[in-house]
């Protein structure tokens, strides 16, 4: 038994990725969970609209971070601001009592706002838009669609590509008269199609089972999903180029997937995450897909307000996919290596 234990430790010591999983990953999770796992929203972007808006803004409690003050605004303006995610609460003073419109798709901010405004009793009317009963599944499922796409795009795709290497068929592909681009596109197109079918099934099922509304533009939703798929498929190809085995590919995919669940706004509101960790959210594709899917499905948001998320995802898609293609191409069409004598390991350069 002692020999077995020693053998296992020796193997682990040389398996850097597994060691990283054992040591680095728990630390990473501890830090991210410790900081990100925070449902407590301390500041809600708020718009005050209508006559006397400036006076009301001055009296607003600290919880409501007044970002828009417009004395000419109406309830329509309020709904537009919430739909475009420019505010999570919009109070109009043109009615008696004033009306507070709350964005129900920002679940935790809405819950906090309802609690705070509820204490005012009859002095204010509360109208929750987009998710009137503040149902968790309505907010979670649009993000979950992205997570499913991401799972297929990274885990399944990378395993599919690494399996070619493991079975020696990648070498066979390399000697066939196929261009690297044809190999890559031919390889990932089925995953793209399957992921798209999965997306449709999950979306329709979610609408049927959980009565989740789909108030926005279906085509825009599809375009957003397609761009996001390109990003995650590119990540899958990248993972495959640095993995020799399926196990290594899965390890790397986990490193990529898990932080996104925590930091993309899928579960924990991004606004509640301290800036020390929050900046990571803005490098994660799921953050932008969640904005797009929640915005379109629940709020009916259009390109005029969602374009920043589309632009960021497109830039990510271009960079990641190009990088993936170049790296994969290198595996298929080797270049001459350095003519310079190779230094033995550990020798001074």
């Amino acid at each position, binding site marked *: 038994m002692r020999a077995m234990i020693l053998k296992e430790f020796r193997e682990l010591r040389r398996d850097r990725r597994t060691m990283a999983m054992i040591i680095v990953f728990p630390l990473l999770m501890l830090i991210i969970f410790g900081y990100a796992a925070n449902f407590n929203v301390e500041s809600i972007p708020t718009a005050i609209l209508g006559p006397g808006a400036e006076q009301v803004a001055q009296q607003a409690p600290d919880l409501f971070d007044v970002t828009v003050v417009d004395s000419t605004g109406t309830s329509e303006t309020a709904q537009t601001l919430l739909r475009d995610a420019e505010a999570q609460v919009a109070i109009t003073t043109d009615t008696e009592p004033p009306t507070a419109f709350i964005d129900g798709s920002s679940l935790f901010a809405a819950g906090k706002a309802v609690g705070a405004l509820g204490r005012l009793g009859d002095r204010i009317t509360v109208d929750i838009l987009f998710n009137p009963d503040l149902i968790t599944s309505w907010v979670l499922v649009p993000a979950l669609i992205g997570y499913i796409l991401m799972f297929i795009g990274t885990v399944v795709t990378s395993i599919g590509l690494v399996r070619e290497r493991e*079975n*020696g*068929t990648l*070498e*066979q592909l*390399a*000697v*066939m*008269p*196929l*261009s690297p681009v044809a190999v890559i596109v031919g390889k990932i197109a089925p995953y793209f199609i399957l992921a798209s079918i999965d997306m449709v099934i999950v979306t329709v099922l979610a609408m049927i089972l959980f009565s989740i509304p789909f108030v926005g533009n279906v085509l825009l939703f599809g375009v957003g999903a397609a761009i996001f798929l390109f990003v995650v498929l590119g990540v899958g190809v990248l993972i495959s180029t640095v993995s020799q085995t399926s196990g290594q590919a899965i390890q790397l995919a986990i490193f990529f997937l898990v932080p996104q669940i925590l930091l993309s706004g899928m579960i924990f509101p991004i606004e509640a995450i301290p800036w020390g960790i929050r900046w990571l959210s803005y490098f994660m594709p799921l953050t932008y897909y969640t904005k797009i899917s929640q915005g379109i499905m629940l709020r009916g948001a259009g390109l005029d307000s969602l374009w920043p998320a589309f632009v960021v995802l497109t830039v990510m898609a271009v960079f990641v996919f190009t990088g993936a293609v170049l790296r994969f191409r290198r595996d298929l*069409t*080797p*270049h*001459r*290596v*350095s*003519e310079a004598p*190779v*230094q*033995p*390991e550990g020798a001074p350069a």
Partner: protein
Amino acid sequence: MTAPALEARSLTRRFRDNVAADDVTFQVDFGEVVGLLGANGAGKTTTIRILAGLLPPTSGQAFLLGSPPSRASRRRLGYVPQGLGLYGDLTVRENLAFAASAFGVEPATLIDPLAGASDRIVSNLPLGLQRQLSFVTALQHDPEVLILDEPTSGVGALAAARLWDRIRDESDKGVGVLVSTHSMQEARQCDRLLLMFDGRIVGRGTESDIVAGMTTVEVAADSWSDAFSVLANDGLLVTLNGTKARVIDLAPADVEAKLREHGIEADVQVVPSTIDERMASLSIRAPAWKEDGSLSRVFPTPAS
């Protein structure tokens, strides 16, 4: 002048401080079968992968059909890798169809026993059939060059014989064939041999060219098993040929002396070595050569 089917010019490939192929130079002409011979780790697969364009050389040049390996030249190449390169989850027919489609040709017509297994999943087939399929897949676009990396490894004698019949058929049609092997029986099927050791070509020509000048001591004793035990227990490399023990790397007088020490009378003869014995001899001497760097002096590479 027609370019050779394959040509390696001073190919060298280093992996960190390990030289897997060291100044390898040879060519394969159309219509000939050249055997690349050597033990595991001799550098055969590295050389083959460079020639197929799957691995870049650190220095030197590889030519496939007269030009560096490219997508265009690989269209005329049939390649059977050691790992077969088949899709285990697809059927025989589907594997053939995929490769045929990639090369833009019609799938090959199968003959038995593969024809009878055409709808079977490849991973469920015996290794012999898988190797036959890999071979048929590599041939279905009528390549002008064949590179076969240990094509009969792990298959039975009958299946190996069938594969060699096909290889000979192809070379008779004018296809240049480079086949790596560590089987002496297969080596004898080749028109020409290249013996690799430690990344270098240390012998070339026919079997007799490669063992030229090298001898083995053959021992015929009344009790061959006692003679064998005595020599083997003394740490010598001994093989059996029928009831005769064969000892390499030792003078006949020394062999006689060792046997006499144990009271064994034997008839000791010096006979030409086999390629197996040549390779074994290389392996035994390698550590000392590596230390003093005299490999090139002990086995100067003959001119091609």
